[in-house]
């Protein structure tokens, strides 16, 4: 029971991060039908922006309040990463729209390689540590000498994720921009006939996806305290898996998929073997897709015409 609760907490924390990244995959897929393979690297870039931001704030400017530093870094990282997302779409994907289906996919892989190599050259190939911050936590309960511990970091990650997802959900479901975004997703040509600027909506989708990935990047950096140029790949693939598992194109699906992947990974590590945690996550993905090809919350396309 105690181990179970502890792993549940750890799994939900990790799952929150995957979920935040997965939204970017699922939204972009929903609106232009392409898998943005560079999204994981955008996440990694945001972690580096956050790292540099933290170091500037704490060592150079001497900001001592962690809460203040965190907020500034979060906002700066979201803005700069969103800019990256916008630029990538503009330079690497938009010129290929209307080209054959694989073209933007190949371009995305190119962007992915570019980003990780760019960061490797600019920042060096070693792991970059962040001085520990926000240590401590709450002991929830204790049985037989095993403490079930909820760290402040984990609280922060889950709280920030919950708040941002709620805001994001409101944006997509209730605002004119969200409606235009969903309209483009369902029928781009029709949206244009109603006066929606489709290119602009697609740009904003990339911007939003990148901003959420930036939140994940900041939280990831705080949680693990270390980041390297290659860190875009594995979390990126896991988040993509989460999006597929939840039903690609579905926003709640992306979050649910993220949580499930996070939970599988931590529980497998705790009860079986940590070396095979990724195998477990991907095996479950394979099994789910055999029985539910459109994912857990994906739509089986039955619509009246």
């Amino acid at each position, binding site marked *: 029971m105690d181990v179970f609760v502890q792993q549940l907490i750890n799994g939900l924390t990790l799952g929150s991060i995957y979920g935040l990244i997965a939204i970017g995959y699922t939204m972009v897929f929903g609106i232009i039908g392409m898998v943005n393979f560079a999204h994981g690297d955008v996440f990694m870039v945001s972690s580096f922006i956050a790292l540099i931001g933290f170091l500037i704030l704490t060592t150079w400017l001497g900001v001592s309040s962690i809460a203040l530093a965190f907020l500034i870094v979060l906002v700066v990282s979201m803005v700069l990463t969103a800019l990256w997302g916008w630029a990538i779409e503009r330079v690497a994907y938009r010129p290929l729209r209307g080209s054959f289906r694989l073209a933007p996919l190949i371009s995305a892989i190119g962007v992915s390689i570019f980003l990780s190599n760019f960061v490797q050259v600019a920042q060096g190939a070693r792991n970059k540590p962040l001085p520990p911050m926000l240590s401590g936590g709450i002991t929830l309960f204790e049985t037989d000498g095993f403490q079930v511990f909820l760290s402040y970091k984990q609280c922060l990650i889950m709280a920030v994720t919950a708040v941002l997802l709620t805001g994001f959900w409101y944006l997509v479901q209730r605002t004119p921009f969200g409606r235009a975004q969903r*309209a483009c997703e369902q029928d781009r*040509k029709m*949206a244009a006939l*109603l*006066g*929606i600027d*489709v290119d602009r909506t697609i740009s904003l989708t990339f911007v939003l996806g990148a901003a959420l990935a930036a939140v994940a990047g900041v939280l990831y950096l705080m949680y693990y305290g270390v980041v390297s140029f290659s860190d875009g790949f594995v979390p990126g693939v896991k988040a993509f898996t989460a999006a597929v598992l939840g039903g690609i194109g579905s926003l709640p699906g992306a979050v649910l998929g993220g949580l499930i992947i996070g939970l599988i990974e931590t529980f497998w590590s705790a009860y079986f073997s940590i070396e095979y945690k990724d195998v477990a996550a991907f095996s479950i993905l394979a099994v789910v897709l055999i029985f539910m090809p459109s994912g857990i919350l994906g739509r089986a396309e039955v*619509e*009246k015409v």
Partner: protein
Amino acid sequence: MSVAGINVLVEETRALAAEKAGVRKTLLSVRGVSTYYGSVAALRGVDLDVTEGEIVTLIGANGAGKSTLMMTIFGAPQAREGTITYDGREITRLPTHEIARLAIAQSPEGRRVFPRMSVHENLQMGAALHNGQYFAQDLERVCALFPRLKERLTQRAGTMSGGEQQMLAIARALMSRPRLLLLDEPSLGLAPLVVKGIFDAVRDLNRRDGMTIFLVEQNAYHALKLAHRGYVLVNGRITMSGTGRALLADPAIKAAYLEGGHGAPVEA
């Protein structure tokens, strides 16, 4: 005199009045437009005018290029040759969403309602250009025109019947407050009674609100009866034009589009 007879009489009077007025300006003018899909020509030098306050219909068989013309007016795809002028301004090379902002609306082929949005949200999308400024009053207006929609406001559009979706597609187009409404085959696949309801609504929009309507139809009989003027499109070319009544009486049209074909008269 039958109801149909009176209708014909009313149409004649209206057509005459429109001719007498004479000063009405041309709202939409299509000149020598050719559109290609790859290297295949779908439209070859189409000339066509729609005058303010008119109902103009374009009839033709499957694959004649009717819907292509509708979409070409909206720049999707753009015409490779020729010019399209709306309200005195050339729009041939404008992007689709900017053309929509000039108060032209389209209820396109296949209805294209947003299937995973509610009826209400679909109508909000129709009004997207006005930022909700006239939404409440326009919602009331289209609900009065199509009372069925009022009962279905919260339903997902994709789960409605074809006729209801057609009403929604027209209502959505109206929400943008267009001066020119393009309707692409509003009768396709619908029961005769539903078709009658939709055509009545179109007639109302034109007479009561003075809306200019460009109607593409396979249902030639109903369309020509409704319209002031008509054009016939064959293989991407306009082959005939004239008043609705004249075309309706034309033996060639009768043979090709009316007798034995679709849209044979069904009088209640």
